[in-house]
């Protein structure tokens, strides 16, 4: 039987014996990570943390530490499905303390699109705002509501007044997602550039962690 992946797997003594691995992941990466693991047949259990932690990045390292510590006794191996993600080194400290690996780069945009390509986008146009499939799908909640644009549309100017474009790192674009991305960019009043990335960036990064 193939060791399928699952989100929030049970923590039993069986997990150690069977060599299962726990991925403490940002909620924005959980689904894709589980799908990739399933396809690759990795014995990976994904334990997601709320994606909205990104707006309070000072909390990320503590949350990851707590979850990882609670999982370590039950798993042979725990890995971290976060990049630096605005923790400015605090997450690296947690990883060093507990001996865990994490995704490379500054944020998940680096993982999906490659750090040097992202760097180029920002150099070309510093006012670049990046979408991932997750952000496109959850735009109303993670962007509009979190930034208060639903309650105070006039804040658009305060947030995005200096922005010139949206770059969508399209992992698995289909017609529905494409329409959502266009609508979201339009609500921000910005032109949309679609950059198909696939999910290989995440897949390779996870393979390095799991392998």
């Amino acid at each position, binding site marked *: 039987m193939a060791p399928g992946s699952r989100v929030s797997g049970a923590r039993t003594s069986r997990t150690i014996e069977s060599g299962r691995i726990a991925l403490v992941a940002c909620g924005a990466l959980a689904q894709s990570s589980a799908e990739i693991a399933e396809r690759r047949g990795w014995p990976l259990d994904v334990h997601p943390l709320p994606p909205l932690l990104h707006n309070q990045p000072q909390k990320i390292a503590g949350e990851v530490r707590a979850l990882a510590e609670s999982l370590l006794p039950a798993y042979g191996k725990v890995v971290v499905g976060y990049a630096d993600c605005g923790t*400015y080194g605090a997450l690296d400290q947690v990883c060093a303390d507990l001996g865990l690996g994490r995704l490379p780069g500054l944020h998940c945009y680096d993982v999906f699109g490659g750090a040097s390509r992202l760097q180029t986008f920002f150099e070309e146009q*510093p006012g670049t705002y990046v979408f991932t499939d997750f952000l496109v799908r959850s735009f109303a909640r993670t962007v509009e509501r979190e*930034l208060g644009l639903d309650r105070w549309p006039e804040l658009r100017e305060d947030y995005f007044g200096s922005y010139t474009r949206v770059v969508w790192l399209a992992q698995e674009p289909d017609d529905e997602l494409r329409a959502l991305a266009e609508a979201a960019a339009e609500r921000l009043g910005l032109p949309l550039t679609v950059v198909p990335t696939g999910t290989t960036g995440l897949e390779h990064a996870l393979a390095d962690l799991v392998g």
Partner: protein
Amino acid sequence: MTPEEILQGLYDETLVGNAPRVLELTNEGLVLNMEPQTLLFDALIPSLEEVGARFERGDFFVPEMLIAGRAMSGAMEVLRPLLAETGVQTIGKFLMGTVKGDVHDIGKNLVNIMLEGAGFEVIDLGVQVAPEKFVAAIEEHQPDIVGFSAFLTTTMPMFKANMNALEKAGIRNSVIVMVGGAPVTQEYADAVGADGYAADASQTVKRAKSLLQERRAKVPA
């Protein structure tokens, strides 16, 4: 309305970011012959300080801060010329900008509002300000303090680039340098050789004032 009610109203309505009401109350206060300084120091600034405190505690998030800031800015539009007229001396000139490559500016804008409220003349260079531009603006405006704001791991090194540009132009010692922004720490500020750092808007005001005092005590007029 009594002056007390005006002040209480200004405080409460700024706290919830009710810009139209804050503007009305400001005008009503002036009709009642209240001093612009009173409206500012006894209502608007304390309210925005409370907003900052709530943000620190996690009770407020960015949008709540922004709408409160907007409400206070609206009142400042009315009060600014009056404060200038009453001959209140500005306590110093503060040149501010977000570094090159970075367009985060919410924190910077809030700092500006508080600095202005505290009596600084603020010149805002906006976002993505290149080192050459900082240098040119310092030469043009001769500020007491220059502030660099940065938010991204990739743009924090611009602090150092700015410092180098100031050195090269021979103006490093003629201006106090302050740095800030979400990822910035006192250690980082020290490492790039800045004179001061502050974690939020009201601390920026305090730190700016004390740095100015130190500098003025050193340099005999």
